[in-house]
């Protein structure tokens, strides 16, 4: 049994004091304890941004790669070693901006990994430009007259493409978020958790604004109802619904044909190819 301390990293945290990212970090630790996976059984993959620094603050395996490219790295990790719990931690800019194409195409693949998106509606690390989720009209440090275009609706896009686990959490609702993360990681296939993570430095609303709006979906909400889920996924205004918005039965996951025909074990466990096989193959070119 692991404890919170097992996930305690030595690295100095570089976030602003009071940033809701701390809540997400806390939720992660709690979730890992609940799941009961040891640090070495988990692999966090991130890009670049404030959110993407999170893996440094958890004691686990991690690969902190390029801005926007966490998902493909995670696909490679997962393909090589399906035993690892592979979790992508990304910013909204990272995942939906620079990395939008990977997000889109990975919905088709349905890899058995979890993608957690810190949605702070801003490019925080680069000092406050608009991100793909910044609401129309809000000012950012490069949008002097406010953002001129509506935000992307990536949760809805995920549901549309049959992603079997789509949730929204709130960084300040740590226990609720913990539960979401546990369910997400344990869900077979791609699980997506977008976390409302107000940025207290570049954001335009105070934390209270979010606290007043965030609503946990009702107990009797049916997360298998696709059109209800689409509706909630696109709701962001007077209320911001959080919880598991959509969940459905398992479908084939990334690499399933390979896993069935070659190996369902990590690729490192494959034996080296036999020289005899190589000679046989080459002999087919001896015309």
């Amino acid at each position, binding site marked *: 049994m692991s404890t919170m301390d097992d996930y305690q990293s030595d690295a100095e945290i570089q976030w602003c004091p009071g940033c809701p990212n701390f809540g997400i970090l806390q939720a992660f630790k709690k979730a890992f304890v609940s799941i009961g996976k040891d640090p070495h059984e988990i692999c966090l993959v991130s890009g670049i941004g404030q959110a993407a620094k999170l*893996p440094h603050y958890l004691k686990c395996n991690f690969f902190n790669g390029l801005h926007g490219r966490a998902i493909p790295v995670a696909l490679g990790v997962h393909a*090589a*070693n399906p035993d690892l719990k592979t979790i992508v931690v990304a910013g909204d800019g990272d995942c939906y901006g620079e990395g939008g194409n990977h997000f889109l195409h990975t919905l088709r693949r349905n890899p058995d990994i979890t993608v957690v998106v810190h949605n702070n509606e801003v490019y925080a690390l680069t000092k406050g430009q608009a991100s793909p989720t910044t609401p129309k009209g809000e000012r950012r440090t490069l949008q002097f007259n406010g953002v001129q275009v509506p935000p992307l609706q990536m949760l809805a896009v995920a549901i549309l493409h049959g992603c079997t686990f789509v949730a929204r959490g709130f960084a300040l609702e740590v226990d609720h978020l913990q539960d979401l993360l546990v369910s997400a990681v344990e869900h077979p296939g791609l699980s997506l958790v977008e976390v409302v993570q107000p940025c207290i430095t570049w954001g335009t609303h105070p934390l209270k604004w979010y606290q007043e709006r965030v609503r946990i979906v009702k107990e009797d909400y049916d997360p298998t109802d696709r059109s209800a889920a689409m509706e909630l996924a696109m709701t962001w205004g007077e209320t911001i619904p959080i919880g598991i918005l959509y969940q459905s039965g398992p479908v084939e996951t990334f690499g399933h044909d390979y896993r069935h025909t*070659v190996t369902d074990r990590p*690729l490192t466990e494959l034996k080296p190819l036999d020289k005899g096989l190589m000679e046989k193959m080459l002999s087919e070119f*001896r015309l």
Partner: protein
Amino acid sequence: MQDIHVIVAGAAGEGIQTIGDLLVRLAAAHGYAVFSWKEYESRIRGGQNRYAVRIGMEPVNAPLSEADILLALNKGALAKYEKLLKDNGIIISPEKDNRDRFLSIPFADIAKHEIGQTIYANTLAIGALVSALGMDLEITKGVVKNVFSKKGEDMIDKNIQALVEGFNRAGRECRDRCPWNLPLREDRYYVLTANEAIPMAAAYAGCRFISAYPMTPSTGIITFLAKEKDRLGVFVEQAEDEIAAVNMAIGASYAGARAMTATSGGGFALMVEGISLAGMTETPLVVVLAQRPGPATGLPTRTAQGDLLFAVNAGHGEFPKMVLAPSDPLDAFYKTVMAFNLADQYQTPVILLTDQFLADSHFSFKDFEPWDVTPKFHWAGTGNHNEYKRYRLTESGISPRLYPGQSKHLVCADSDEHNEYGHITEDLEKMAPAMAKKRMLKLDMLKKSVHPPEEVATKGADFILVSWGSTRGSVLEAISLMRGTGVKAGMIHFTELWPLPKYEFPRGKALYIVENNASGQLSRLLRSQYNISSRGFVHRFDGLPLTAGYIRRVYHEHNG
């Protein structure tokens, strides 16, 4: 016997691929060494393509330009390629022409009326070629049966019928016009392309993962591995773009699987950030860059050596990297295994530079026994760390590499500058420069793994052709052509281009640098390292491969 050179020319979709492939097989089945290369347009049907087949007693793996036999499947092909025919060469074609060198055989008509369907036209043409070349009909029948073995009895019979018909038609006309003769020999050759050798070598080297996005002329590599999934067990993923492809491969490699990707210039451009990532995270990575003429889309189905300096300098920031440019499929096999081994040993990206010519051409080898380079792995071992540090500062610059999940040791990789544990550092005083130095140290070490260029006939040579990569066969043939006319040429051929080896050029020899590009990239690279100067250059940049004849001609233009 002088080598015989057959050009099969026609539109895409007209059958030249089938005819060319079959001819290669037939020549080999008769015991001859065969070399083929192709040029084709960037379209699926139509245009004018060529499939050139060179047949000889010994492997000379180099393209020729002049042809003995031109099989021209249509009028356009005839118009475009007839000028390549030798004076005593012959043309086989469904077109009508009264000239003596012309064997006019309406394949499609005959196929339709005598065999029943036009689809047998190709086999008819093969029959005619076999006759003209003086090949053995029975052996040919065997090969044809084999090739069509899965298509059912009727198909086989009809094809044999077509073959014989073509053979007889041509035979009647060939009598005094076709001096060639290819009697059965005992020899057997390995005949393959680099796009076949590389994926096999990769799998042999322990590659377990490939992700790529289709791009000519690299697509054959991933296609081969996908087709051979069950035998080779490589996890194959077609990515949504090249950025995903390179990052997936990096992820797989980080997680312990030898991994690769393959692309061409434009796709490689998109991968460059990932290459820098592999350099920083010290993740082994093998990238095949199959060159074609640029810039941008350029001539997407043609050949060039235009990306050498781009590859050598690819990636922002400074990190060790290796660039290898094999000269033929056997060398490509070796270099591929070497690439995986060195990527692993030095934990860094290795680029394999091929080109359309090398990727698509069949080369013959008497022996293909590439076993003296074997897969070598460089894991750190999980037991011997008090405290595991992925980026431990060591004297060699090489840190202990484990993969995540292998043991309790956590494997933390970072694209930021980091400390020994893989955590972001902002310590500019000690850690950041120490890490930068450590990485660059590996480049010094890598230099020791690099071999000097191949020298051929440099002693006593009056001048030396300096070349790299896929042009080796043509340069060798150029040397022997020139030596045949009393011009003493030698060769220095590079296949390991970055880091460059410690090497002293022979003194006092005039150097001519031979490249399949316009700007002289090898020249620039060598000058920056060896302080040499060259007497002249042989450049070709029209999308076609260098031939011995071309090299000789340009050399003589320089030297009167």
